């Protein structure tokens, strides 16, 4: 046994001294005149003290008061015993719901095992223990906040489902530490297999981090890559398989074009290696799929799909400083694969469909689309005439780029005073000149915004993600009506003209989506498979795939790194179990008995 605050024990001496001193004081009794005193027995009970000292007499009341005081001081010192268990007094569980947690090396799955551990901890919580649960999914969220309501917590835990997505465990851990911010003795328990991106920018504060590994290990063979490319010899389809296990693995790879099998062959993949297969693909197909059946412990990476529509996939390079608003708006487009760079690479962005200059002067690029936000360079479709402070919005053209975008009332601190060059066209104007300029040439399309988003409250407006989506459509071209291939669990948005879109899961469950600002954000495609999306009366296939090799590498990680600090998995971490509550209860009982005795005697 130990004490959290042993210094509190010293309080007993002065407080006991006060209690004893009160007993040393002689009672000043209330005087009452009666007809005669000879009938009254001279019986007194020293139940309270007053002035002037007297000899200390043995008293049950004194003994009980000292006992209650001792118990109270003992409680203040917070006696503790060392126990084993995941949960502490204040615990936040971070439950990894990524694709790798769907591995069945632990039956029924790693995710189910993690839920079982969390459930046991909740059920073993003592009175006063508070727990919260954060789901480390593609979008981390608090499943239930800090509290002590086991029934509701278990219900919320049971309703939790795994995903086939790449989880943002780092953000989940930051969220968890925020939940217990500043609380002494808090504990963040990560229930995971450790297969996630290294966690940077993490500060655990006062909280202790406990990592509980839930994987045992197992072999996995997954589709690492699937791509289609048009070559002078025709369209080629490439599939790459990776064996993450220590033994060679043989499986059958089947390739499909618009749902029809175009090739099937047995492939033997050596241990810890990748093996590719290229095949001539039917040129007219819009969707290519690959499927393997390795009978391994992870199913999510046994299927992959790729769209042949060039606009169905946009590689975007954002050049400039950090801008979470712009990055989030870009990532909402299911076609976008986003990369970030502080400056334009020397190759001029070759290989990217769109380059976005965010708050930095634009430069000549080799991409087919350029988004300039705030600072026009020499290659921009505008001529810079100066700068202006706090312009007033004056109006905008009716153009697809400005559809659903309202700049009226947007606060802009400063804009570039520009005039369009050549074929460039101003689509929105202010008192200080054009706000939005679009240019379309045979080799490149350009959208220019006369202010950096972070110099305005435009990113906080509903119109901002719509403007970015419109710009992507203008710069990259509108995707055809073919299947939409998205990363499982990653939110994406689709434009909605009217009504409420619906999403039908692979298992037939229908979900109605609530559109906002002319678009609906879809977060429900968390499992790999084919979904049907009904928007504006038209049905479109959405295919969710894993799209990240990291989740395929299911080897459990026994030591994770939090901001370069190693955290080792513990089977059952130690905790200090407080037992001041029963002592406090006992103290109350003693006080109650003391009061009863006092009342009886007085």
């Amino acid at each position, binding site marked *: 046994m130990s004490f959290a605050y042993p210094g509190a024990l010293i309080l007993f001496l002065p407080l006991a001294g006060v209690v004893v001193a009160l007993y040393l004081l002689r009672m000043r009794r209330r005087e009452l*005149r009666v007809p005669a005193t000879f009938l009254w027995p001279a019986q007194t009970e020293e139940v309270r003290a007053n002035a002037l000292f007297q000899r200390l007499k043995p008293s049950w009341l004194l003994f009980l008061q000292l006992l209650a005081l001792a118990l109270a001081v003992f409680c203040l010192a917070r006696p503790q015993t060392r126990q084993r268990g995941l949960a502490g007094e204040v615990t936040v569980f971070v439950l990894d719901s990524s694709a790798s947690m769907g591995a069945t090396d632990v039956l029924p799955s790693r995710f189910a095992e993690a839920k079982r551990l969390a459930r046991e901890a909740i059920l073993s919580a003592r009175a006063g223990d508070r727990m919260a649960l954060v789901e480390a999914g593609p979008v981390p969220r608090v499943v239930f906040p800090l509290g002590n309501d086991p029934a509701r917590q278990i219900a919320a835990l049971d309703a939790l489902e795994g995903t086939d997505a790449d989880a943002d465990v780092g953000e989940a851990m930051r969220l968890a530490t925020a939940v217990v911010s500043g609380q002494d003795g808090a504990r963040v328990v990560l229930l995971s297999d450790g297969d996630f991106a290294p966690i940077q920018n993490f500060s655990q504060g006062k909280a202790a981090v406990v990592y509980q590994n839930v994987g045992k290990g197992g072999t996995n063979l997954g589709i690492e890559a699937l791509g289609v490319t048009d070559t002078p010899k025709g369209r080629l389809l490439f599939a790459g398989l990776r064996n993450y296990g220590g033994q060679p693995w043989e499986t059958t790879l089947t390739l499909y074009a618009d749902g029809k099998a175009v090739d099937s062959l047995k492939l033997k993949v050596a241990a810890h290696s990748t093996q590719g297969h290229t095949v001539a693909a039917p040129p007219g197909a819009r969707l290519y799929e690959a499927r393997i059946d390795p009978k391994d412990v992870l199913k999510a990476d046994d299927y992959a799909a790729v769209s042949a529509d060039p606009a169905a996939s946009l590689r975007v390079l954002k050049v400039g400083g950090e801008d979470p608003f712009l990055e989030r708006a870009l990532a909402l487009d299911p076609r976008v694969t986003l990369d970030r760079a502080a400056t334009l690479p020397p190759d001029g962005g070759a290989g990217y469909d769109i380059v976005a200059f965010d708050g930095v002067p634009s430069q000549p690029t080799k991409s087919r689309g350029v988004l300039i936000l705030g600072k026009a360079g020499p290659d921009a479709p505008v001529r810079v005439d100066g700068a202006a402070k706090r312009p007033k919005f004056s109006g905008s053209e009716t153009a697809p780029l400005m559809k659903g975008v309202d700049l009226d009332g947007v606060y802009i601190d400063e804009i570039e005073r520009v005039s369009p060059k050549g074929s460039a066209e101003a689509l929105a104007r202010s008192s200080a000149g054009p706000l939005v300029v679009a240019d379309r040439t045979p080799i490149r399309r350009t959208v220019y915004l006369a202010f950096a988003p972070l110099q305005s409250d435009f990113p906080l407006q509903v119109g901002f993600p719509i403007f970015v989506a419109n710009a992507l459509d203008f710069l990259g071209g509108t995707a055809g009506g073919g299947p939409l291939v998205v990363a499982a669990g990653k939110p994406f948005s689709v434009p909605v003209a009217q009504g409420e879109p619906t999403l039908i899961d692979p298992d037939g469950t229908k979900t109605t989506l609530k559109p906002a600002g002319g678009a609906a954000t879809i977060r429900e495609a968390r499992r790999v498979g084919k979904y049907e999306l009904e928007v504006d009366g038209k049905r479109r296939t959405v295919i969710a795939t894993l799209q990240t090799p990291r989740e395929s590498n299911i080897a459990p990680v026994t030591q994770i790194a939090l901001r370069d600090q190693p955290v080792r998995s513990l089977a059952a971490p130690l905790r200090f179990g407080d037992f001041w509550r029963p002592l406090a209860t006992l103290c109350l009982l003693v006080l109650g008995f003391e009061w009863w005795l006092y009342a009886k005697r007085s």
Partner: protein
Amino acid sequence: MDLLLEPRAFRLLEGLRIAPRKSQPGRVRGERLTRRAGLSIEFADYRDYAEGDDLRHLDWNVLARLDSPVMRTYRDEEDLAVHVLLDDSPSMAFGERTKGRAARDLAAAFGYVGLLGGDAVTPVRLGRREPPPAALRGRAAYGRYAAWLGREASQDAPTSLATSLRAFAGSRARPGVAIVLSDGFDPEAPNALRALVGRGHEVWCVQILSELDLDPDLEGDLRLVDGEGGKPTDITANSGVLKAYRENLARHNAALADAAKRGGGRYALVRTDDKLEDFVRDTLKREGWVR
């Protein structure tokens, strides 16, 4: 003039006479028969004639039949000494209706009955150094009797109940009925009553107690200051102490009753809130204190 009693009480007391359990020697001719031979019409006995006897009492029928002179004797009639001993000690000042007030009303009732019966009623104030007045007789004396009762007591230093009783017992007061109207709150009161009995008095002890005396509602740590000037007592008024008090009171009351009854006297406990009518009906008449 304050007659102390209400007209209804006077009507209630009309016709009642104090009924002592034993005969007391009289000083003047009164309306009560004595054991001594006297001149009333109540036949007592026969005796032989002696020279000088009043021939009016010679039984002529016996003389004619037996030829022997026999004298008829008759019981004498004397007055009864009724001493109304009214406790005026400080302890009688307690109670919502004070014990002193209740005692004064009872003293008025006893005195009225005694005066109407032709008894020699002497009011005595206990607890004060005050000489008693001369005995009063007859209905006409009630006014003076009431005036004496209604008069303020002397402001001399009070004496204890037992001291006052012993002083009365040691006085030359004629033995008679000594009606003690007091709360009896003196540990020596039973012994003092025995002293009265020893002097030939028939002691009628009417103990008057208030609600505070019978069921004190005290709480907490107290220093009890004696109303009679006795030693203060520190108590913690809990259930045990209150129970002990009630037991002590019961023992003390029993000792008073025993001391009064031992000499053929009477004892009654009266609460200050009891009505005079009830006391007259339930105690005086039913138990034969009066007839």
